[in-house]
């Protein structure tokens, strides 16, 4: 039996017991008959299916753009979905107007998705500048315009709305007044519907569903998912003794936004933009990224370098810990039992400097050919006390290269030692050839990415290190 859920679609509340779990996209299009949300790929890569999801995060309503093709319907309990129809209920909005005036809609198939993505940026409070606007649409593809007109549309919006009210309620009033949101819709957004929280016996743990629904676009009747964000504290990042505890439902988005994380690992937020896209980051959990056991998962690589450990819980509530480094058995296989799940991720609360590198065909929203992170813990004098080097895309599982990292320990590494570390790293991997790159390319990338880390961490070595 699926759970009975209560949610709001635009301005209407729905209580439903879905026949089977499915991407919200299907329910929106086929059951609610709202056809403005398009299916372009059904794998999170095009943004044509974009909707705005309102949910309580730590007790406050938070609205963000997500791809509805990777969003589970039964995950909507207590949530609010806004589709293009909800935004357009009072006619053309300033976002739409900007698209019209700049000719940013040609065949139009992508347009609702872009409008939704940019409207979400307004609801989130911006800032509305070039960087944030482009980031807001980094999950939207348009094959017609070449993005010139779309950028001009965003420029118009940036000019028209240089600043948005900080406070959520004031901002909603402002957005309604400016016509960015229909008043009737904005009025509903202050609170979210009361979830039903029906307890049913579930068959599968899911985080954001961003991977699951891509692999299972048409899930079996038997699937009854348990979404980790239902658990108390699952969305929190908290400090316990000398460890940061990251709940199982913490998303990439929340991880990079966390003040705790940013303070502990200075500069880590710069890497966010190279991982997935805004709508995917808004949903994808760190736990899901690990549980996939993909050899190329970006968050896993970061967490490996940070020395993460997993707290694994079984069905009876008892838990054990497992170091992330030992968590991967073989390709896409994690060392946990089927009735176990990741309850939290722990990382040592020690300040480290971290460098993350990823090479992919497209710089944004692409899966890496090779990714890597190097985290170093330094003494005041620059001595390296601890170094962890993680590499993905070069073996069936993500790797920690201890020998190579060991070359960097001790006094501030010289170019010679760095080059040795790079050589060792390269020698330690034996990647395969696939659609994202040949084996020998990957090997050469490993060497070069170690150098890239070193240049970021010790810029004074750049001249000596460049090939």
């Amino acid at each position, binding site marked *: 039996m699926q759970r009975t859920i209560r949610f709001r679609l635009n301005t209407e509340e729905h209580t439903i017991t879905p026949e089977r779990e499915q991407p919200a996209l299907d329910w929106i299009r086929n059951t609610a008959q709202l056809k403005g949300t398009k299916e372009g790929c059904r794998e999170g890569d095009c943004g044509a299916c974009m909707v705005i999801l309102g949910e309580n995060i730590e007790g406050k309503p938070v609205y963000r753009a997500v791809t509805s093709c990777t969003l589970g319907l039964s995950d909507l309990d207590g949530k609010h979905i806004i589709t293009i129809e909800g935004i357009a209920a009072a006619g053309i909005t300033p976002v739409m107007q900007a698209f019209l005036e*700049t000719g940013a809609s040609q065949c139009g198939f992508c347009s609702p998705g872009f409008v939704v993505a940019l409207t979400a940026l307004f609801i989130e409070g911006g800032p509305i500048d070039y960087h944030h606007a482009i980031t807001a649409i980094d999950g939207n593809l348009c094959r017609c315009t070449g993005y010139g007109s779309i950028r001009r549309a965003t420029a118009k919006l940036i000019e028209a709305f240089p600043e948005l009210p900080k406070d959520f309620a004031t901002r909603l009033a402002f957005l309604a007044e400016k016509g960015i949101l229909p008043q009737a819709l904005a009025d509903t957004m202050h609170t979210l519907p009361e979830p039903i929280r029906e307890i049913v016996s579930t068959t599968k743990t899911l985080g954001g569903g961003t991977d699951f629904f891509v692999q299972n676009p048409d899930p079996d009747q038997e699937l009854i998912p348990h979404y980790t964000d239902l658990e108390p504290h699952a969305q929190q990042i908290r400090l316990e003794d000398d460890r940061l505890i990251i709940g199982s439902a913490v998303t990439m988005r929340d991880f990079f936004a966390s003040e705790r994380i940013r303070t502990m690992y200075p500069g880590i937020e710069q890497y966010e933009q190279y991982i997935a896209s805004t709508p995917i980051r808004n949903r994808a959990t760190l736990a899901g990224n690990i549980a996939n056991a993909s050899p190329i998962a970006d968050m896993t690589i970061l967490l490996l370098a940070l020395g993460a450990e997993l707290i694994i819980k079984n069905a009876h509530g008892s838990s054990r810990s497992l170091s992330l480094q030992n968590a991967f058995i073989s390709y896409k296989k994690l060392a946990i039992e089927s009735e176990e799940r990741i309850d939290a991720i722990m990382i040592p609360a020690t300040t480290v400097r971290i460098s993350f590198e990823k090479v992919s065909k497209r710089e944004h929203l692409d899966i890496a050919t090779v990714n890597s992170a190097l985290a170093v813990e330094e003494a005041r004098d620059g001595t390296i006390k601890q170094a962890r080097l993680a590499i993905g895309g070069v073996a069936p599982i993500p790797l920690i290269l201890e020998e190579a990292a060991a070359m960097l320990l001790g006094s501030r590494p010289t170019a010679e030692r760095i080059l040795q570390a790079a050589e060792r790293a390269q020698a330690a991997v034996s990647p395969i050839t696939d659609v994202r790159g040949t084996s020998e390319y990957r090997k050469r990338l490993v060497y070069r990415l170690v150098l890239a880390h070193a*240049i970021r961490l010790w810029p004074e070595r750049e001249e000596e290190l460049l090939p």
Partner: protein
Amino acid sequence: MNYNTDSIPHVLGTTLYIDDLPEASTLLHAVPLLSPTAHGTYSGLEVSEALAVHPSVRILTARDVPGKNELGMVMDDEPLLADRKWHYQGEVLALVLAATKSLARKALTKIAILNITELPAITDAREAYAQGKIILKPRVQQCGDTEQALTDCDIVIRGRVESGGQEHVYLETQGAIAFPEDTGGIRLIAGTQSPSLVQQVVARILGLPMHKIEIETRRLGGAFGGKEEQANAWAALAALGAYVTKRPVKLYLNRRDDMQATGKRHPYSSDFTIGLSKDGTIRAFEAVFYQNSGASTDLSPAIIPRTLFHACGAYRIPNVKVTGIMCRTNLVPFTAFRGFGGPQGFFVIESAIEAAAHALHMDPMELRLKNLVHTNDRTHYGMRLEDARAEATVKRCMELADWHKLRASIDEFNSKNHRYKKGAAGIPICFGISFTKLMMNQGGALVHVYHDGSVSVSTGAVEMGQGVNRKITLLTARCFGIPETRVKVETTRTTTVANTQPTAASTGTDINGAAACIAAEQIKERLLLFAAEMLHTIKTELDFSNGRLVYVKPSDKAGQDTGYSFDDIVKKAYESRIDLSAHAFYATPDLFYNMEKEHGKPFAYHVYGCAIVTATVDTLKGTYRFDTAWIVHDLANSIAPDIDSGQIEGAFAQGLGWSTLEELCFSSDGRLLSNTLSTYKVPDAHFMPEMIVEILDTPNPHAVANSKAIGEPPFMYGIAGYFAVLDALHAANPTGTLFFDLPMTPEKALRYLDNLVESPATLKTHNNIEENQ
């Protein structure tokens, strides 16, 4: 209104694409069963388990085709449904119908393909050629005497050039809905660039006369050539389903099936020989193009001549010999894609020029400038260039980018930076407009003026985001002197305008807009004649303007209002029993071509332009970014400048994607590896450089309203991106081996930096010149 009102429903999300149309409760959903490998035979299908999934499940195979099981328009080599053998991965073996899409998918997984025998698959064009597997005969175009000229050249360079295929990634995938009619025929809503072609194919498949088949195309969520010939199968399958089951059938491909089963841009492998004198004048050029045509003929015979027509790019070359060979492989049938073989031709000549510039130690841009075509030059296929705008656009583009300063600043940057290197390159274009198949340069229009004065226009043009509806609206409104809001362009239907040609070859507006204008003029003529009689004047003293009937010169009341509006005159004319409808026909004039001699005037005119692109390479990682693109484009008198600038930027983006980012990957046994949007990447908002576009607006007397066609030519600008990255790589590794193997992926860039480029792409042979490297 100062923007495209056609887009209003798009941004509101109310536009209805195929998958958005209301569905009848009896409708069946169709999904195709695709062949799993590139080449094989099988004895049949075991479907009992699939049929057991749900009572609504039906499975159709080749045996269910009542007419001729054939899609091919040139040759019978493309069955709609395979029959015990397949020739590429993604060929349709069966059609599964069920009450819902998910039931149909579930049933599909239960079908067993029996006794599969794998056969060897050919994936490489040259290998197919070596095995004698070619389609039709090679085509050769030539002028002068290359053999003699090459012996006279100071420098001769030979090289090899590869260019990869390209997936269309129209955001709306292929689809159609078929409705059985009580006449025994079929009505279809099809996502096609060519409703008449679909009509013809469906009639053949069902064994019915064409008038029993009606096709409507509402609009497409992108097409780019991918829904020309390649839309036929999906419409025909839906039609077959409706014909057999007597229920409406919808077939809307999911992305994976679409990428797997539909044709894409042809990969090419080519050899060139270019000969120059030491001052950089190109004397001779030879090229052999091995086109990877895929498993069936499709549009390849129309595409190969366009490659040959554009083999000399925008350059004047007195001695030319170019050969195009269609090689049959076991890949998906390659097909039309914006540029239609042109880009593959351009990339080869530009590669040759780049190699020549390096050999001669010349600035490639100067070498290009030096060899441009001029007015009254004759192309290698014998067409006189009437008003060549190559030099004007190239010079202006160099000015706009401040070329010499740009070069100097790049050199300075490169001398100061070790890790990051910049590069720049420019490409001129000269692109012929008209269908290369002469017969296709025709179109019709049907215009109705309703008696309230509102106007309806039907043509053969299909709206797919290129704005043809907007342009036809503006042209018709201009002709009637009424506001554009009074004109509506109808969906494209085979019952309103018949025997139409695909909306393709950039000719949508040229042909259909011209036909619409002729039809509108006819009605206007009748209205003015009627009004003149009523006002006791002559019709040349009257005209419509801003929806009013006004006096014009030579009338002495010129400028004065007659007191009547357009609507008044229409109403009165209607009451006086005047015909307010007109059909018109347009055939592009003055085209001729002798196929035997490969000589003539195949194009109405050429479009010129130039793009300069800059890139920055991270030489440590082999990755790159594009910084700026300057484009000067010969648009003539634009009918809708906002639409045309969108076409320029959009085409450039696709060209840049093809040149650098988009990598179609096949396994050695012919399976498509890049079959999702997570493995096949197209440009995103971050990827595109800043684009500075300027228009050359000299009028063009050879197209409607002095305009020029826009769709395809700017695609070629993207090729500049390849050479900009190559230029930056060369700055990092000046002794590296130049290579011409598009797309320029980061992997290839790193191979160059690591000196791993295999066989040198260019072999230089010098005649009378000293090697001074």
